[in-house]
C-alpha cells in the first residue's frame, strides 16, 4: 500500500477575506471557520486566534494538536469526523509549518503550554509552527466529558478545513510511504526485520463511550492487532490523552523505520496494542503483541514505546520480556518522569532503554505580552512539584517555572523529542 503525502510549505498565516493559499501564504476566513465549528451544539461560541513563531505569546490549556491534512480521495479521519472508510493510501495534502491547537475551556488545572518565543522554542516543533488556536466556549451546564470530545472533533474539522485549501496546489515536497504486504516481500536476507509494537492507550483512564481513538472506535477491549503504518500517519488514530495527535500523524518511530527501510533494516510493520487495567490482561496483551510481531510480521527485533502513566512501565517490560523469550531482540523508548529514579522499575533482564527525556525538569519561561486559551494557570511558581488542589491561580503572562514536560511537544511518549537525560 502506498501513501503520497504532499506538503505545501506555508510561510505565514493571517486572517483574510477568503480561505486560500497563494505563494505559500495561507489566508484564513475566520468567520467561515468559526461558523463551521459553531455548528457544534455544545458550544456557546468559538473564537480563533493565530500565534506565530517568535511572537511573545503563550498558549495555555492545550488539549490536542493536529497537522492540517486533507485526503484528496477522502475520507478524512473516518469514524471520528467523516463516515466510515480507510486511510493510508492515495494522496494526502498537508500544510507544513501550520498546526491546529485545541484549547480546553473546562480544564483550569491543565498545564500544557506552548510558548512561541523564548527558551521553550528549542524544545518543541509546535513552538515553531504557525498555530491556529481554537477557543470553543461551552454552553453552561455542559458535561465536561462530552465537551472534551466536541473540542477534539472541532480540531479535526479545522485541520481538514485548512488543508483543503491546498487541494488544488502542487506540493512543494512529497513523501512517499510504501510497504508491501508481509506475505509477498520479506526483504533481503541481510537486512534485519524490525517491527514496532505500539500501545495506543492506557485504560487506567478509560475512553468514553463515544470517544474516537482508532478508526472511530473507543477501543474498549482492544486486542493487539496488525495494521499498516500508513494508517497511523494518515488519520486513523487520535490519542485520547497522554500524547498529542500531531505525533501520530508525524510518528517519530514509524517515520524513522520508514527512513531506514531497505537501507540498514527492513520495516516489518507495526502491532497496535493497549495497556489494560488488570495484571492478567496486561500479560495477555504483551504476549499476543509480541507473538504478532514474531509470527505474523516475522520480526527479528522490536521497538516498543509507552503511553499513559507509571502503571504502563509494567506492560512495556512484559512486552520486552516476551519478545526476547520468543527469540527477538527488543529496545524500549520510555519517557522519564521522576528526577530521582527516572521510571518506576527496570527488571534485571531489561538492558536496552532509550529516553526521550525527563518531564519533571524545571524550566523558567519569561513573561509574555499575550496569552491565548485562558488567563490563569494552576501553578505554584516557587515549586512546580506542588500539586496541592488549593493552589491559587497564577496570571499566565508572568515569568513562570514549569516542567519541561508541560511544554507541548517537548517530550512525547511515542519518542519525539530533542533530548536525552543524564544523572547530575
Amino acid at each position, binding site marked *: 500500500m502506498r501513501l503520497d503525502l504532499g506538503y505545501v510549505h506555508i510561510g505565514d498565516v493571517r486572517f483574510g477575506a477568503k480561505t486560500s493559499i497563494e505563494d505559500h501564504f495561507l489566508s484564513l476566513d475566520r468567520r467561515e471557520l468559526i461558523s463551521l465549528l459553531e455548528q457544534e451544539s455544545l458550544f456557546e461560541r468559538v473564537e480563533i486566534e493565530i500565534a506565530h513563531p517568535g511572537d511573545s505569546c503563550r498558549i495555555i490549556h492545550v488539549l490536542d494538536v493536529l497537522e492540517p491534512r486533507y485526503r484528496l480521495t477522502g475520507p478524512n479521519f473516518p469514524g471520528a469526523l467523516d463516515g466510515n472508510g480507510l486511510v493510508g493510501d492515495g494522496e494526502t495534502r498537508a500544510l507544513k509549518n501550520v498546526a491546529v491547537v485545541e484549547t480546553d475551556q473546562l480544564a483550569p488545572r491543565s498545564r500544557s503550554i506552548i510558548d512561541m518565543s523564548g527558551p521553550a522554542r*528549542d524544545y518543541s516543533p509546535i513552538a515553531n509552527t504557525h498555530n491556529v488556536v481554537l477557543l470553543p466556549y461551552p454552553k453552561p451546564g455542559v458535561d465536561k466529558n462530552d465537551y472534551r470530545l466536541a473540542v477534539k472533533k472541532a480540531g479535526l474539522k479545522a485541520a481538514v478545513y485548512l488543508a483543503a485549501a491546498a487541494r488544488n496546489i502542487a506540493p512543494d515536497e512529497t513523501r512517499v510511504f510504501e510497504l508491501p504486504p508481509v506475505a509477498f516481500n520479506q526483504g533481503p536476507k541481510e537486512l*534485519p526485520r*524490525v517491527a514496532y509494537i505500539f500501545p495506543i492507550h492506557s485504560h*487506567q*483512564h*478509560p475512553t468514553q463511550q463515544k470517544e474516537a481513538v482508532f478508526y472511530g472506535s473507543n477501543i474498549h477491549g482492544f486486542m493487539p492487532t496488525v495494521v499498516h503504518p500508513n494508517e497511523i500517519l494518515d488519520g486513523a488514530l487520535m490519542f485520547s490523552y497522554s500524547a498529542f495527535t500531531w505525533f501520530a500523524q508525524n510518528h*517519530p*518511530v514509524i*517515520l*524513522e*523505520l520508514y527512513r*531506514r527501510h531497505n537501507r*540498514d*533494516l527492513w520495516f516489518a510493520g507495526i502491532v497496535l496494542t493497549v495497556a489494560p487495567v488488570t495484571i492478567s490482561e496486561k500479560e495477555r496483551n504483551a504476549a499476543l503483541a509480541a507473538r504478532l510481531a514474531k509470527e505474523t510480521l516475522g520480526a527479528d*527485533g*522490536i*521497538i516498543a514505546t509507552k503511553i499513559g*502513566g*507509571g*502503571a504502563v512501565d509494567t506492560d512495556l517490560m512484559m512486552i520486552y520480556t516476551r519478545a526476547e523469550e520468543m527469540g527477538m*531482540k*527488543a*529496545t524500549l*523508548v*520510555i519517557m*522519564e518522569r*521522576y*528526577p*530521582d*529514579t*527516572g*521510571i518506576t*522499575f*527496570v527488571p*534485571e533482564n*531489561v538492558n*536496552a*532503554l*532509550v*529516553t*526521550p*527525556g525527563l518531564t519533571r*525538569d524545571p524550566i523558567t519561561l519569561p513573561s509574555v505580552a499575550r496569552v491565548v486559551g485562558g488567563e490563569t494557570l494552576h501553578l505554584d511558581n516557587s515549586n512546580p*512539584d*506542588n*500539586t*496541592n*488542589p*488549593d493552589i491559587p491561580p497564577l496570571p499566565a503572562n508572568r515569568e513562570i517555572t514549569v516542567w*519541561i514536560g508541560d511544554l507541548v511537544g517537548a517530550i512525547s511518549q511515542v*519518542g*519525539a*523529542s*530533542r*533530548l*536525552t*537525560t*543524564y*544523572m*547530575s
Partner: protein
Amino acid sequence: MKIRVVHYLNQFFAQIGGEEKADIGPGFKDGLVGPSRALQQALGDNGDVIATIYCGDNYFAEHQEQAIDEQCARIAEYKPDLLIAGPAFESGRYGIACGAICQAAQQRLGIAAVAGMDEDNVGASLHRKNIYIVNSGTSIVRMVPTLQRMAALGLKLVRQEAIGKPADEGYLPRGIKRNEFAAKPPAERAVDMLLAKLRGDEFLSEIAPPKFAGGKPAAPLRNLKSAVIALVTDGGLVLEGNPDKIEPGRPTRFTTIPVAGVDSLDADKYDAVHSGYDTAFANRDPNRVVPLDTMRELERDGVIGKLHDFVHSTGGAHAAVENATLIGRQIAERLKAAGVSGVILTST
C-alpha cells in the same frame, strides 16, 4: 574579583598529629597548612585561602552537633565566599565531617561549599545529595588534581555559573536527573540500539535501573483470629471534600480516616483523589478501593480479631521515592504503636 576561601582539614592534614590527636577540638591556623598550599595554588589569582580550620576526627564523631556549630561560627567570622573541605579520601570519620560541615555552611550560612572524598566513603552516601562532593578516589597521590577540581567547581558555584555534568566536573552524581539536548533524536537512537543488539555489538542503555532499599519481610502473622488488621491504601481515598487536601499526585502527606462503627464506605461520605486512574468506579463505591464492608463482616464473623479504627490513605500517583518511603514509615509507626499486627494495602 578574588574570592575568600576557608579550608577545612582534619587533625592529620592540618599537621597537628595522627590518630593520637583525633580527639582534639576545633582550631584554626591563619594562612596555609599542608594541603591548603595546594589549594591556594589551584585557586591561583582567583582566590585567597584566608584560613585553615580543623577538628579531630574523633572529636567530630563524638560531638557532631556541637562540632558543626563551632565550625559554622568560626567560618562565619571569616565571611568567606567558599568552603573547601578535605579531600578525605577513604577516611570515613573525616569524610562525614567534611560532608556535614559543608552542608551546614551551605544551609545555615548560605556559603558555597565543596567537599572531596572517595565515592565509597560513608560521608559521600550521607551527603552527596545535598552538596557537591568531588571524587578523590582512595589514594593520597590524587591530592593535587582533586584540589584543582574542587577549586574549579567552587569558583563556578561562587560565580553562579552553570555546573556541568558529574563526569566533566568530577563530582559524585547527586541523584538528580536532568535533560540535555541530544545529537540524535530518540527514535533514531532506539533503532541504532536495536540494530547494535541484533548485531551483537556493545551498546549502552540510557536509563539505569532504579535501586530500592527494600526492607525485610515481616514474619508470618500468627493467630489471625485475635489480630488487629488495618487497611491502608494508595488509591487516594479521602473524606468527602478532601479536608486534608491530599494531593492528586506527587503526595507529600497522608490522611487518617476514622472508621470505628462504620460498616461500609458510603459514596457520599468519601471520595477518591488520584490523577493516575479514573476514580469514577471508586467514587460510586469506595469499598472498591478500600474493602471496608468486607473487613467489617470478617471482624463480625470472627475471622480477624479486630479491624483497626483508622484507614490511612494517600494518593500514589508519581510519588517521589523519598516521600513514599517517609509516608510509609510514618504510617507504619502509628500502626505499630496502636497494636496493629497485619495490614492490607490496596493499590491502584
